[in-house]
């Protein structure tokens, strides 16, 4: 334990892996430089740095708008100034593990929309796939360029009390947060001048270049027109869409900027119509094409699926990838890895109970205080039941819903998320964190940006890191 008021009240949680301290308050090596920098900083300096970070987010427009009456109020996602640091060895395993997982998931998608060997071999139950709302029959027999479905992923990892990383979710649809990875790093450079190079931290700033190269290589055209499709200015991730478009130098388009003619997609420009070859879409499948999915959608483009099936446009990620990150299908990812790659999974799954199975349901009901129940198609931390903090009435009500369609729910043991030091009210305090590294899959392989988004549950004792529910983020340093 260090002799500084800043560190004085760092109370480690029981049975929990802390990113900075080993069990006996021994400082982990990767935190030494940052820790001594903090020792030398006065509380006043740190407070100023925190203010500076807030100001930087506001001034750059790294915000989302909350509409209240006619007033639009700009908000920032909370940012904690202390970095989360990952060692070289830890990262190597994460890197290999995610690559292995995405390779298998991509093979699964190709299989499930073509021959369905994995169903015929009874590795995954047929009804599980066909009953999933994310399984798109419209994609049956469609072959995307280079057989790539999941170009962009943001796998969520958590660290259990033994220090091992587990996969929480695969996020294969339109994972967000990568702009925060970039922005957080820019802010770290300014609040910890000189510390990043001293620590040998790997850069993340070339992510947009890599992304652009990979998107470009997804097209058969020699000089393809790549665009980013956004739902528009009212979307909470709009900042991210503008940033990625700006940093890649591509057009940010809305559904109404695009039109389909002769099974080809065009954008409306001041010169007339211009052909579009690759669309990095940040619009969900359901809203993509009013002719095939949600007919009331004005966010998508009528006829785009027909153009896609003809091979005239590449959609990134491919429609229908949601089937592979469904929470019930998640249970089978280790089996997929064994089935398609004949390898043992490098990153483990969290033990998951399917409430559709009577014996699992029974077990979960008996052990509810140690369980969290989730909807298989849920996201954003909504619709969950945390057994350890729910009242008896809540639990009863929740099971009443579960019993109507148990197959739509899964349960997992409540995990001990690892903690990392946060600067809260002038003191360092441990808070639960997860990690979302961003991977890009192109014809020449998978590239994972060294770092990612560390999300942090800023409320004391909370395990929910989602930004919509009081979560914040941290810069993530991977050491060379």
């Amino acid at each position, binding site marked *: 334990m260090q002799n500084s008021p800043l560190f004085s009240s760092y109370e480690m949680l029981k049975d929990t892996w802390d990113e900075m301290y080993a069990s006996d308050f021994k400082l982990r090596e990767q935190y030494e430089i940052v820790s001594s920098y903090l020792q030398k900083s006065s509380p006043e300096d740190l407070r100023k740095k925190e203010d500076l970070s807030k100001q930087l987010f*506001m*001034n*750059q*427009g790294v915000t989302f708008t909350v509409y209240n*009456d*006619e*007033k*639009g*109020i*700009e908000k920032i996602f909370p940012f904690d100034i202390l970095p989360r640091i990952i060692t070289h060895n830890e990262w190597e395993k994460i890197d290999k593990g995610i690559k292995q997982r995405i390779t298998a998931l991509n093979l699964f998608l190709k299989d499930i929309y073509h021959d369905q060997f994995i169903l015929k071999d009874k590795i995954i139950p047929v009804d599980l796939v066909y009953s999933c709302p994310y399984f798109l029959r419209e994609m049956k027999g469609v072959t995307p360029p280079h057989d790539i479905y999941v170009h962009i992923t943001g796998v969520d990892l958590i660290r259990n009390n033994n220090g091992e990383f587990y996969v929480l979710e695969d996020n294969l649809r339109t994972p967000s947060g990568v702009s925060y990875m970039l922005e957080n790093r820019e802010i770290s450079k300014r609040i910890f001048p000189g510390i990043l190079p001293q620590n040998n931290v790997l850069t993340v700033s070339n992510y947009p270049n890599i992304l652009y190269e990979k998107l470009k290589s997804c097209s058969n055209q020699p000089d393809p027109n790549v665009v980013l499709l956004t739902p*528009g*200015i009212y979307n909470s991730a*709009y900042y991210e869409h*503008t940033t990625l*478009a*700006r940093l890649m*130098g*591509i*057009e*940010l*388009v*809305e559904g*109404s*900027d695009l*039109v389909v*003619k002769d099974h080809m997609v*065009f*954008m*409306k*420009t*001041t*010169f007339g*119509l211009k052909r579009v070859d690759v669309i990095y879409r940040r619009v969900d499948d359901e809203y993509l094409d009013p002719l095939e999915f949600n007919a009331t959608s004005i966010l998508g483009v009528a006829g785009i699926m027909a153009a896609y099936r003809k091979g005239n446009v590449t959609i990134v990620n491919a429609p229908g990838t949601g089937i592979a990150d469904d929470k019930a299908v998640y249970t089978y990812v280790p089996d997929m890895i064994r089935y398609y790659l004949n390898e043992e999974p490098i990153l483990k799954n969290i033990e998951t109970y399917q409430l559709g199975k009577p014996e699992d349901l029974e077990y979960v009901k008996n052990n509810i205080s140690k369980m969290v129940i989730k909807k298989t198609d849920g996201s954003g931390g909504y619709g969950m039941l945390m057994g350890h903090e729910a009242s008896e009435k809540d639990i009863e009500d929740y099971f009443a819903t579960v019993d109507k369609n148990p197959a739509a729910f899964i349960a997992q043991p409540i995990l001990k998320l690892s903690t990392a030091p946060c600067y809260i009210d002038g003191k360092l305090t441990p808070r639960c964190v997860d990690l979302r590294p961003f991977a890009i899959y192109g014809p020449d392989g998978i590239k994972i940006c060294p770092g990612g988004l560390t999300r942090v549950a800023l409320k004391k004792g909370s395990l929910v890191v989602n930004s919509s529910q009081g979560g914040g983020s941290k810069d993530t340093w991977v050491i060379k």
Partner: protein
Amino acid sequence: MLSRVANNLMWMNRYMERGYSILRLLKVNFSANQDSPELFSWTPIIKNYAGVDASFQTENAIECIDFMVFNYDNPNSIINLVTKSRENARSAQEHIPRELWLGINSYFLHLQDTNLPEKLKHQDPVEFLDSLLNYQLLHYGNIEVTQERGSAYYFMNVGKLLERVIQISDFTSMKLMEISKTSDSLERSFHWKYLLLSIGAYQLYLKKYKSSFHEDNVISVIFQEQLFPKSLYYCVNKLSRHINELIQTNELVKNDLEFLLGKLESTIKYTTIENINEQGLENFIASIKQDIKNISMSINNVYFSTKS
């Protein structure tokens, strides 16, 4: 460039220019109103910008400035104009220099600061308005220094100039209404003086005609001065040049645009003071506004046309 983006850039600057004009008008009317409140009432300004049936009414200078800057129900309050300008800039970020976006965003954040309305109440109102005007000038400075001279630049300028012509015409119409109410020549000359001030043509006028305010001379400075960036002559000339740049690179369709612009240009160029007096200044201004509206509609048709 996407048609929507071109439209965004045009409107970004239309809203900015409107804000700029309104702030100048408020500043000039404030000082005139402190001299003679009966002569320089706030009501015409409120009616012109918030709509003739706006329920808000005041003859208190600070209340009026507050309404014109901060009120969300007033469609042309500075806070609403800057919000709209910022939204247009926000969805065109990949086409404008970073500095330009940061400038608009900081203007927007400055207006959102909840302490700002208090400052207006307790500080020098002129300093308050000047601080906002500085953001406007920074915006134009950013464009001049950082924006490449391509279509984005021309679309921005088309928006700015269209709006400037409308504002100059509006200012003059508003003054004509007031002038018609009095036959006192001193009062009339006050009005002419403050019209020149609100447009920013006062110093130029003094240099040319000394401190003696005659209608014909004022009109000639505002409408026909060739080298003054806020005269109608200058604005229309530049508007025409920038639209022609866009037509030449095939980014705008000629259609009737060339004709409309040519007509407006020659109207302003070849109408003498005598001609204006013959048809009446009100009618002359009304016809200019109609021409500007037609030009604006013709540009809009290119973007909102259902023909692809």
